[in-house]
C-alpha cells in the first residue's frame, strides 16, 4: 500500500472544496 500523491494541485483543491475533504500538501525535494 502506498500514497498516491497527485500533482494536479489546482484540481485537488477544487475537489476538496466540492467533496468537503481535507488536503495534505507535500512540498518535497526527495527523489521521485
Amino acid at each position, binding site marked *: 500500500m502506498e500514497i498516491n500523491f497527485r500533482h494536479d*494541485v489546482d484540481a485537488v*483543491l477544487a475537489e476538496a472544496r466540492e467533496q468537503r475533504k481535507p488536503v*495534505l*500538501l*507535500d*512540498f*518535497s*525535494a526527495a527523489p521521485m
Partner: protein
Amino acid sequence: MWPDPRVVKFVNENFIPARVHVKDDSALFQKYGEKYSAQWTPTVLALDPDGVERHRIEGFLPNDDFLAQLMLGSAQIAFAQQEWGEAERRFREIVDTLPDTDAAPEALYWAGVAPYKGTHDGSSLKATARAFKERYQDTTWAKKASVWG
C-alpha cells in the same frame, strides 16, 4: 516517514494527498510555495476543505512523531470547523496512542479546549490543568494550561 504503513493508512483515509516537487514540478512549487509560504523541504501542510492551512510540519520527523503531527492536523481541521466532539476525539487519540511524541502535550491541551468551546463549561479546562500536573509537566503546553487550575 511516508512508507510507514500507519502513515499511509492515515493519509489515505483522511486526506486527498498532493505533492509538489521542487524540481519536477518547479512551476507548481513556485506557485504554491508562494501561496503557502513554503520555503523549505520537506514541508507538509494540512489544509481544510477550503484550502486554508490548519497545520504545518517542516523538516524530517521519525515515524511516530510524523504520524502524530498528521493526526494533530486532522484534529485541528475538525476544530476549525467547530466540530468540537470530533476534534476532542482526534486530539485524545494522539495522547492515547502516541503519548511519547512532541504532539501529545499539544493534543492534550486542545482536547481540553474543544469541549469548552462547545459548552462553555470550564470543567474540561480544569481537568486538563490537573492532567498536566501528572504528565508533560515540563512542556510549554503545561504552562499554558496552568492558568486553568
